[in-house]
């Protein structure tokens, strides 16, 4: 296509500025964490607190990666049909149950030491969970949201809340009403690079999340389907006139967003070793906060917001105030909405209230 050389009007802002922002934030966080750790236990000075701060830093990045993966789905769906998809957090929860079901059915319960088998099982778990949740997302869009695309604004929102409760309670009634232990198949190895050490699971999650996000960016900015998504987000009618198949494009958006949430669900099981039918609600709210924080409709911003939320949570738990972390996150949501509704990255949004 000759059109590929045309000027790209991207849904996302250029990624270099956010990357610089992430690096700057990371340095700031590291200093804050080290400060808190050295302060909270008397024997530790600032320098001797650094290893502990480093572990917490990696923990924060990992948790942030999970939120970022979920936030991407929120922001993509909002960007394209302006719907807060309340059911998205439940997709994440269902994803964790799919991987739990798969891994226990295959008979795994602990770490897999054979590297080849480990890679194979991980690939399978992610592929199955992502495809299944992607399909679930498309089905939800087809059955519940598509017919309401031109209905009053309240209707799809209420439907989304309903779908969220349906998913949550199907798992509650059919699968389990209590906490489920998921197999942590990645061995608990710590890799050390000079003075920097990281455990295998953290490294894996971070690489996976960054890889998925980079792939998503490439997909949105470079492919034909990505271009269809961007143009639908900018102006649905105009895109349709230009020959974009709106229904397919929206379904595709749901597929990609839900697949990312499915991947986050697998990570939840691998990293925390537990899942429960109601994790989706809280995780969804936090991920939505992340999406708003980064600027809703903006995929790079969602990733950035996810990491910020991860850090907020870890900082409050290191501080010994972990029980307030939810209040802090939602307080942040309100503040951002009131003072900077366009998010950190400040993309201009048309107000179509």
């Amino acid at each position, binding site marked *: 296509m000759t059109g590929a050389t045309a000027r790209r009007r991207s849904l996302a802002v250029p990624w270099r500025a956010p990357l610089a922002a992430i690096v700057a934030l990371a340095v700031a966080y590291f200093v804050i964490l080290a400060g808190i750790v050295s302060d909270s236990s008397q024997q530790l000075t600032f320098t001797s607190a650094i290893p502990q701060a480093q572990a917490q830093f990696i923990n924060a990045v990992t948790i942030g990666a999970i939120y970022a993966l979920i936030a991407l789905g929120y922001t993509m769906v909002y960007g394209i049909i302006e*719907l807060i998809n309340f059911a998205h957090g439940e997709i994440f929860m269902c994803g964790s149950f799919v991987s739990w079901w798969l891994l226990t059915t295959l008979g795994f319960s602990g770490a897999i030491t054979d590297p080849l088998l480990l890679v194979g099982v991980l690939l399978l778990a992610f592929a199955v969970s992502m495809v299944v949740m992607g399909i679930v997302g498309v089905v939800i869009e087809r059955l519940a949201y598509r017919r309401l695309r031109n209905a009053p*604004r309240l209707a799809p929102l*209420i439907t989304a809340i309903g779908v969220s*409760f349906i998913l949550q*309670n199907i798992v509650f009634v059919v699968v389990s009403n209590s906490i489920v232990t998921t197999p942590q198949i990645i061995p608990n190895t710590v890799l050390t690079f000079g003075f920097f050490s990281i455990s295998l699971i953290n490294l894996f999650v971070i690489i996976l999340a960054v890889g998925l996000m980079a792939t998503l960016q490439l997909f949105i900015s470079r492919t034909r389907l990505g271009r269809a998504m961007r143009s639908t987000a900018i102006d649905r009618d105009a895109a349709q006139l230009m020959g974009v198949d709106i229904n397919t494009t929206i379904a595709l958006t749901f597929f990609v967003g839900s697949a990312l949430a499915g991947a986050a669900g697998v990570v939840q099981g691998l990293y925390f070793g537990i899942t429960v039918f109601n994790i989706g609600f809280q995780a969804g709210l936090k991920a939505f906060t992340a999406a708003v924080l980064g600027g809703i409709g903006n995929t790079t911003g969602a990733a950035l917001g996810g990491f910020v939320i991860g850090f907020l949570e870890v900082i409050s738990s290191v501080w010994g105030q972990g029980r307030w972390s939810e209040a802090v996150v939602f307080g942040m*949501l*309100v503040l951002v909405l*009131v003072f900077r509704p366009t998010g950190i990255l400040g993309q201009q949004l048309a107000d179509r209230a």
Partner: protein
Amino acid sequence: MSGRSGTGTPPVAAGGTGRSGRASSPVWRVALGRVRAYMGRHQSLSIVIGLALFATALPFIVLLPPLNGFGTQKDFIGGFADAGVFVLLAIGLNVVVGFAGLLDLGYAAFFAIGAYTYAYGASPFSGLDIPFWPMLLVGAIVAAMFGVLLGAPTLRLRGDYLAIVTLGFGEIVPVVFLNADTYTNGTNGITGLAQPSAYGLFGVNGFGFTNPWPYFLTVVLIIAVAFIFLYRLQDSRIGRAWVAIREDELAAASMGINTVTTKLLAFSIGASTSGLAGVFYASKLSIVSPDQFGFTVSFTALAMVVLGGMGNIWGVAAGAFIVYEIQAQGLKQLGAFVQSLHIPTFALGPMSVDLGSINFINFQYLLYGLALVLMMLLRPEGLFPSRRRRSELHESPEEAAESNEELVQA
């Protein structure tokens, strides 16, 4: 649009039969029409009469079989008093969702604030002993103040942000009540709240766990007052402003309506009704704890409003009552009924199904979720729609053309 009705048979014949039918309508129909017209002119009176009739009939209905097999009359009356709490919640939420078209997903937070206000006003925990009746007002005012605090910054934003902010607020409030344990007694909650007193009026003395009657009467009274208040609001200048904002905010603003204050008013009136319900609820249970006010309460209230018919006060109240009774009695009795059938366990593929062991109460939120989605897709105006909603949502092109034709003929 007009093509279909244009090519079809002209609706003159249909109109003709309709008119003759109206002329020769039976006596009861005329009487019903008269009653309707009278009720329309004397709305407050008809609310009082209607609620009084309903509240008088209820205690007798539960004595009839098969209902009398499900519990004593006293149990039922206590249950109706609890149902009344949800009726209050639903008609309050209806102001926000149904009238003004704002989605409030943190409605339980105001319920919690009302309940905790009563707990501070009348319990050994605070050492205060303020009587129940003034506390009703105080609870409503405190809840309304929090509504303004939350609404003032967020109601300027677009509608769906309000949904998420209220959702977050609804999550924070129980978390605060849970974690600020110095002030709220944490997980254990505040116990030993004073029960209301009627000061021997009408021979009523003891509000108590063993005597649910005064609670039942009180809640009917509160509902009646709230009904009258909300009906008058709905027909007032403010009520029309709410509808205008719901339909088209931009148009409403350009007609001179201050959209932020009008929305704020709806939001805080909804919150105050919820606070009122909270005070009553706390006084009846005599205990408040953070886990009573989770998101499921907000969700249940929303399901009641949507099922009943957004914007129709009577419909929403009926929806709340029905949903509450299904939840409290229906599912339990269904479970008992299925169990009594002794259906043998049968195999369904690899699973073995034992219908008798199913706990139907677990299905309630699944049912609410399904109800919300199905209602939005199939019957968005609710089971008991308000006239305005029905005409908005179901005005087919033919009907529109017909009404135009009628206008032309007249």
